[in-house]
C-alpha cells in the first residue's frame, strides 16, 4: 500500500468532504454536521466540540482512506469513477447504517424511541439523516462521491 500517497490524498479528500458539507450547512441545504456530532460526544462545550469533532473527523477520513487504498490494491488499479462508486456505497452506509446507531452511542443525543432524557438533548438524525433536512441524503452521498473520486483519481497503487 502506498502509505504517503494515501495519507496526502486522504487528507485532501477529507478536507474537501468537510468543506462541501459545511458549505451545504451554510447554504441551508442540510443541518448535518459530522464534526459537531462527534465533538459533542466528548464535551457539551460548543466551541471545543467543534474543534474536537474536526480532529476526530479528520482521523476518520484517514482511516477510511486506508480502507479505500486496500480496495484499490485488491482490484489492482484506481480510477476516479471506481473511487466515486466506493464513495456512493460509503455515503449510503453512513446514512443507512451508521447514523441510526448514533442515538445509542452518543451520550448527549436523544433517542426517537425513548424520548429525550434530562441529559440527552441533541436532535437525532432519523432515517437517512432526514431530521437534519430533506436534502441531507443528497448532500451526504454527493460529498462522499467527491471524497471517493479524489482518492480514486489521485491514489497510485503500490507495486504496479
Amino acid at each position, binding site marked *: 500500500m502506498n502509505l504517503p500517497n494515501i495519507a496526502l490524498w486522504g487528507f485532501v479528500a477529507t478536507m474537501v468532504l468537510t468543506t462541501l458539507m459545511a458549505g451545504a450547512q451554510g447554504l441551508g441545504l442540510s*443541518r448535518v454536521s459530522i464534526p459537531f456530532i462527534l465533538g459533542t460526544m466528548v464535551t*457539551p462545550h460548543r466551541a471545543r466540540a467543534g474543534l474536537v469533532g474536526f480532529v476526530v473527523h479528520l482521523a476518520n477520513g484517514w482511516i477510511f482512506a486506508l480502507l479505500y487504498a486496500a480496495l484499490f490494491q485488491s482490484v489492482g488499479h484506481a480510477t476516479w469513477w471506481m473511487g466515486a462508486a466506493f464513495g456512493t456505497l460509503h455515503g449510503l452506509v453512513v446514512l443507512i447504517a451508521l447514523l441510526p446507531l448514533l442515538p445509542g452511542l452518543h451520550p*448527549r443525543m436523544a433517542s426517537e424511541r425513548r*424520548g429525550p432524557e*434530562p441529559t440527552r438533548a441533541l*436532535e437525532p438524525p432519523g432515517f437517512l439523516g432526514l431530521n437534519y433536512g430533506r436534502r441531507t441524503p443528497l448532500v451526504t452521498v454527493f460529498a462522499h462521491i467527491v471524497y471517493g473520486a479524489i482518492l480514486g483519481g489521485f491514489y497510485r497503487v503500490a507495486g504496479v
Partner: protein
Amino acid sequence: MSRLPTHPPGIGDYAIIGDCRSAALVSGDGSLDWLCWPRFDSPSLFAALLDPDVGGHFAVRPAAPCRTTRRYVGDTNVLETTFRGADGVVRLIDLMPVSSEEDKHQALVPDHEILRAIEGVEGTVELDIRYEPRPDYARRRPRVRDRGALGFCTEHGGQVLILRGDVPLRVVESGAVHGRVTVRAGERRFLSLVFGEGEPAVLPLLGEEAERKIRRSLEWWEAWAARCQYAGPYRESVIRSALTLKLLSYAPSGAVVAAPTTSLPEHPGGVRNWDYRYCWLRDASLTLQALFDLGYAEEAEAFMSWLLHTTRITRPELQVLYTVFGEAELPERELPHLAGFAGSRPVRVGNDAHGQLQLDIYGEVMDAAYEFANRGGTIDRVTAGLLTGFGHAVCRRWQEPDEGIWEIRGGRRHHTYSKVMCWVALDRLIRLHEEAHLRGDVAAFRAVRDRIRREVGQRGYDDEAGTFVSVLDGHDVDAVLLLLARYGFVDPSDPAMLRTCERIERDLGVRGLLYRYPPASDGLPPGEGAFGICSFWWVATRAAQGDVEGAMRAFDHLLGFGNDVGLFAEEIAPDSGAPLGNFPQAFTHVGLIDAALTLEHASGTRKRRSGTERIQQTGVHL
C-alpha cells in the same frame, strides 16, 4: 391592576422577553405575536403583531374570558401573566432562558429558546394552545411534522423550529398545532420552543430541567439588575429601563438596537411605519452615558467597541444606522402581503434612512468617544486616527444641508441642531487633544469650531423671538434644541436657552408631553404623537436649570404613560396616552434614565462622574 385583554391587542398590551440576541413580544392575553430568530433583524417567525390573520403566533390563552394582571418577576426580564377566570387562577411565565457562559459550557443547551411555564394557582382553568409558525415574514407556510416525543418540527431553508410540551398537542392542519389543557391548582406544565440553524438542533428539555432554567434566568437577571448604581426615588422605573436597554443590546457585538419591531405605526392606520431593528449612531452618546452612569461599564465598553469597529467600515463618513454586526447596506422593502398593525400600511423591512446625511451623528459619536476616554477608556492610535478623520469630515461637510436628526424625507435643510453637533464634534476632538488623549495639530479644528459657533449665533437664533430656531434663518422651534445645553453649546440658564425652553413648551407642548416639531410640518400625513424622549429631555433641561420640583412633577406625569409593565414606545398619543410607534423603544428608555439621573444630580443627591458635567459647567452664554 387586573383588566380584560383587548382584541386585537394595542401596542401597550405587549411586553418584551429576550436573551440579548433577539426578542419576542407577548400580548396581555398570552399570545406571542412577534419573534425574529436568530437575531433582531432576522425575518420574523411570528408576526401576528403586523397581521393577526396570516402573521403566525404562539398563544397560550384561557379558553373562557379571564381578567389578567402582568408583571416582570422582581428585577428580571421574566414575564408573569396571571389569568383569573370564574373557576380558578393560572399563571403563565414567559422567558428566553439566559445563563452565564460558564453554565452554558456545562450542558448542551439550545442556542435560542422560549420557555413558557403554566402554573395552576387556584381551582381549574382551561387553556387553549395555538402554535402557528409562519417563517420569513409569513411568506412561508411550512409543514409542521409531529415527531412524537421529539416534538413538533418545522423546517425552512436550513433552519428548524421545534416545539415540545408536556401538554396534549396535535397537528390540526399542515401548518398549525393546537391543544387544550385543564390546569389544576399546584400543577405545572411546560412548553418550549427552540430554534436551530446549520447544525443538529438541541432539543428543549422539560420538567426539572425547565425549572432549573427558570431559576437560573431569574438569578442571572437579578444579579445583573443588582449592579445598577442608581438609588434615587425612581429606582423601579430606572431599573426597568435598564433591563429593557439590556434586552435591546445584541450581546455578540455590543450593539444596541432602537427597538425590536418594525412598522408599528406612529399614527394608527397611517404610513409612518419604519423598521427600527437596527442601531442608530445618534443614540450613541446618551446610551453610553446612561450605561456608564448606572454602573454598567462592561456594556458601555462593548457598545463603544461596536461603535468604533462599525464606523471604520464607512470612514471617514458616518452612516446614520448599521446592523448589529455593522453592515452598512439596509435596503428598504415593503411587505404588501401583511395587513400592518391596525391596518397601518405599508409594512417595511430595512431602512432607507441609512442613505441619508445626518451631520449631527458626528457630534454624538465624538461625544461618546470623549465620555469613554473620560471614564478611563483608552483611545488607541487607530481610534485616534479614526476620530481625527471624522473631524476632517466635519470641517469638509458642516456647511451642507442634511436630513437632520428626525430623518425627514422631504429634502435636506440647514438644521441648527446638526450645525451645533458639528461644533460638538470638533469641541470634543479639541478637548481630547487638550487632555492628551490625542496628538496632532488641532488649530484648523479650532477655527472651524469657532466659525460654526458664530454661524449658529447669527442664523440659528431668532432675534425677534429671542430663541434658537430649528433651521438656519427659520422661525420655528424643534424639541431637539433642548439638547443644546445638554451638550454644552450654551449654558442651561442662559436667557436665550430659558426663552427657547419656554417657547418649546408653548409651541410643542400638549398635555404635559412634547411634539418633536410642529405637527404636520414633515410633509407626511398628519397624526404623529408626542415624542417620548423629547418629553424626557424637557424634564432634564428643567432640572439642569434648577427647577427641580417642576421637573419632578413633569417626570411623575411622564412615567404614567408607560404601560402596565413600565415599557415606553417611541411616541405617545396625546389624547389617549396610548403608546405609538415601535415598541419598546431604547431611546425613550435612555431618555428616562438620563432624566432620572439629571434630577438626582440637580437635587444634589448624586455626583455625575462624566465629562459632560465638566462641559455643562463651562457652557457658554450667548
